[in-house]
């Protein structure tokens, strides 16, 4: 058997273990509401799903080379659009959910065309200013935005009638859990397919050198606006879901701390890896909930954990296995020895 054959076999094995792992993970995720955990854990699960959506879309915008600082603005647009259409317009949630995403995506196109021309801190300030302006609109205008005190008593999604099986009523946590899970899987799947396609290569090219990318004929503005609109729309749908889940929104639910948290989840998890924001959200949302019992010191503990991770894991938590592996390898093979992947 030649070397390439072995490689190929390994590749197959690798993919099938990955597939099996995914199926196992999905089964575990689906089992969570049924194994007798208290509602609190199901709630934490739902929050993790929401934050995975937020931070994965956020990372995708960062990966186009844009320092996005207004994610909270788009999430807020999604939440307010859906809530107002349901409560004032009388539309069902199942209609307003995609509409909320669409409205946010359109807004992202309008903002994106002028703003995506600039990069770095300038783009950050522009998107932040836009989001802050919206927040301010919600705060000052009582009708219909509810002003400073926000909107409460938001109705849950309408029941879904299932043939032969009865109806799914959104009165307890498990239906919300599965809706959140479905939205998260949809988002992750869309972003994963996009990143591992020709589009992903284009975005890498734009990030590494946008003048060069333009020189080889890539319409960089078009691609950037597309990513910005898609991510804003997906995040806005998660925002709408969150609004109907929690039953209450206010301008303070969507302040800049939200965007900053997304940045932190992404960087702590690992910016370069697709799984980074997923791992980061899981790790830090859980850590935040765990530290909540320490009351006064929870922010210090949380911030300390964050600083330590950023200092010692430059590639994020996702890079941890590699660091451990290379430490182990260094022990096993003498320095300078050739390994399968080159010199260690």
């Amino acid at each position, binding site marked *: 058997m030649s070397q390439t054959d072995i490689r190929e076999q390994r590749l197959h094995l690798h993919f099938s273990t990955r597939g099996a792992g995914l199926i196992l993970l999905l089964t575990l995720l689906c089992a969570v509401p049924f194994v007798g955990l208290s509602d609190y854990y199901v709630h934490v699960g739902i929050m993790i799903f929401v934050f995975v959506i937020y931070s994965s879309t956020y990372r995708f915008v960062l990966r186009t080379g844009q320092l996005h600082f207004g994610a909270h603005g788009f999430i807020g647009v999604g939440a307010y659009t859906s809530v107002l259409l349901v409560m004032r317009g009388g539309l069902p949630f199942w209609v307003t959910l995609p509409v909320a995403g669409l409205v946010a995506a359109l807004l992202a196109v309008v903002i994106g065309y*002028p*703003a995506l*021309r*600039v*990069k770095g*801190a*300038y783009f950050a*300030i*522009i998107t*932040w*200013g*836009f989001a*802050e*302006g919206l*927040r*301010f609109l919600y*705060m*000052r205008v009582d009708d219909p935005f509810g002003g400073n005190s926000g909107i409460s008593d938001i109705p849950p999604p309408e029941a879904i009638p299932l043939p032969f099986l009865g109806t799914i009523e959104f009165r307890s946590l498990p239906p919300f859990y599965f809706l959140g899970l479905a939205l998260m899987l949809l988002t992750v799947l869309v972003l994963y397919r996009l990143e591992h396609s020709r589009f992903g290569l284009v975005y890498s090219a734009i990030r590494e050198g946008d003048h060069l990318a333009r020189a080889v004929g890539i319409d960089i503005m078009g691609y950037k606006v597309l990513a910005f609109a898609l991510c804003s729309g997906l995040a806005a749908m998660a925002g709408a879901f969150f609004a109907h889940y929690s039953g209450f929104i206010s301008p303070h639910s969507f302040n*800049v701390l939200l965007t*900053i948290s997304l*940045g*932190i989840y992404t*960087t*702590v998890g690992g*910016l370069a890896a697709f799984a980074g924001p997923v791992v980061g959200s899981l790790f830090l949302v859980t850590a935040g909930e765990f530290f909540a019992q320490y009351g*006064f*010191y929870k*922010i*210090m503990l*949380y*911030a*300390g954990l*964050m*600083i330590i991770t*950023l*200092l010692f894991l*430059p590639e994020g938590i996702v890079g941890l296995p590699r660091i451990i592996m290379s430490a182990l390898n260094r022990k096993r093979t003498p320095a300078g020895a050739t390994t399968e992947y080159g010199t260690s």
Partner: protein
Amino acid sequence: MEVIGQAVINGLSLGAIYALLALGLTLLFSIMGVLFFAHGAIYMLGAYVTYFVCVRAGLTYIASVLIAVAAMAVLGLAIEKGLFRRVRGTLFPPFFIAIGLNWFLESLGFAIFGVKMKSIPTVLPGAVRLFGMIVTYERLVLVVTGVIAVAALHAFLTRTRAGLAMRAFVEDPEAAALQGMSGDTVSSLAFVIGCSLAALAGASVAPVYVVSPTMGEHTVLTGMLIISLGGLGSIPGALLGAVVIGLIESLGAMYLGTEFTWGLVFVFVAIFLTIRPAGIMGEQHA
């Protein structure tokens, strides 16, 4: 007319405080390439150290300001050596470490100093009539402090070897390193200067406004807006931005209310940067 004059004076003294903060921020931005969020916490700690030395330990106000500045300079050095030296040159880790540090120091402030606001009794009572307007000595001192600090920083950056080294480093780190300048020293220096300026700002506002653990939160955001408006890394831009935002805030607070003004300032800066991304004084790269 008199009311407007009063607001202008208030705006200028606010602008002086913002200038002290913005100078440090823009200096750190030009060295690190990221916005240093923990600046607000340093400002808050500077005010608290002043309060404790002045009110609790009973030293004179001037002595407490000096102690606060020295303490924050040491803290700045420790922050640089312990945290930022390890991640210099990367983009996201320093930014989020600064945010984490800000949260850490702020909640430390809550833990140590409590949630109650404190204030230092007025140091310089009295007022003077200038052009028919009543200006308290305190506000006058704020403006003078700001001007002196700016002049001192300018002299440092243009007249001393260390200052020139810093500017050279900002211009081209590699060429500066080849000339024998140490990046570590330059970055330590930037942190020491930036944190001392923030402490000076905190110590100066302590007798005029109240001291609370969250006092830096809003101020550091304003500082970020100011340096972006002025042009990131540009010192004259930071000064100009500080005065512009100080005046807008003070005039706006009089006519529109503080919350409305905050939104207005944001929208103003966002629109300005959309039209001219490099800010007032920044170089047009984008």
